């Protein structure tokens, strides 16, 4: 990652979090989103998927779930958020930085993406 324009962010999203299941990536111009990975529920996210995204060269990863209380599968979004929190700790242990990974609800995705891009700029390039 040499400049913001090359910031690469992978997004895992719940298909139920968007109208008609139609997802469009955040509108920020300082990052690009080479991988949008659709899930039937955000709770399907696993630690390994998130780490693999980083192994594949992601500078940052977002997991996008349904707004609080609106998960079709009751508490899938809660589970996803908890799983993300655990992997954030693991990324800190690894030395990559837990702040490279965020969980966001669909209605807050634009803000979360902008914050993530800013955070990645502060963290600097990945080794």
């Amino acid at each position: 990652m040499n400049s913001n324009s090359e910031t690469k962010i992978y997004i895992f999203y719940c298909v139920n979090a968007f109208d008609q299941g139609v997802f469009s990536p955040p509108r920020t111009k300082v990052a690009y989103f080479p991988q949008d990975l659709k899930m039937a529920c955000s709770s399907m996210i696993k630690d390994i998927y998130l780490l693999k995204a980083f192994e594949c060269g992601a500078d940052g990863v977002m997991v996008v779930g349904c707004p609080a209380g609106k998960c079709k599968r009751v508490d899938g979004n809660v589970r996803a958020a908890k799983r993300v929190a655990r992997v954030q700790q693991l990324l800190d242990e690894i030395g990559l930085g837990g702040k490279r990974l965020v969980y966001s609800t669909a209605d807050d995705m634009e803000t979360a993406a902008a914050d993530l891009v800013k955070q990645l700029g502060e963290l600097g390039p990945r080794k």
Partner: protein
Amino acid sequence: MIVAKQKPIAEIKEMLRPYDKVLILGCGTCVKTCFAGGEDEVATLGAALRLAFSQDGKTIHTEELTVERQCEDAFIQEAAQAVSRNEAVLSLACGAGVQAMARRFAGASLLPGVNTTFIGVLEKPGLFTEECSGCGDCELDTFGGICPVTRCSKRLLNGPCGGSKNGKCEVSPDIDCAWQLIIDRLTLLGQAGNLKRYIPAKDWRLSLSGGPRRLVREDHVI
């Protein structure tokens, strides 16, 4: 089941530093259930270690495999070829599994990836609690199926200490008073008379105090 907890990445990294090719070997029984060493944890740890070493500019080659049980020779054999392809084995099994592997593969460097913690149960999703100390002399029939040796913080065998409050142990409000549970359960079962029975001092020679234990079943020895 045997409950274990994965070691911190920094500790595992330090153990693996001399090696370039490592087999991460999971165990598909107890440690899988407690999220410490099954297929998912093997995959996650593999990726975490590759990322962690790449932070130091080192490339580590990991092979990943999970066998049904590392404490049984019949299952361990499945790992033979993978063991021979690597310089070290990071075992995510309990201490018994790691030692069974070391016995089976005398020339392989066996490294523990988890800390074996206790014999316990899944009390509710995400919560594992210690239930048995393997003391070698089970008296659960007397105590209504609740073990004071393990679950009473003071290991009292003849009634509560008097320090519990609202059914919680004085050691920590997170710990149920085992004796409260025993009394409640014996009362429910109509066996409160058991509480009058004097339990003599425990013979700890049957536990670890007697040295490493053995169990021989002559009918299975050939």
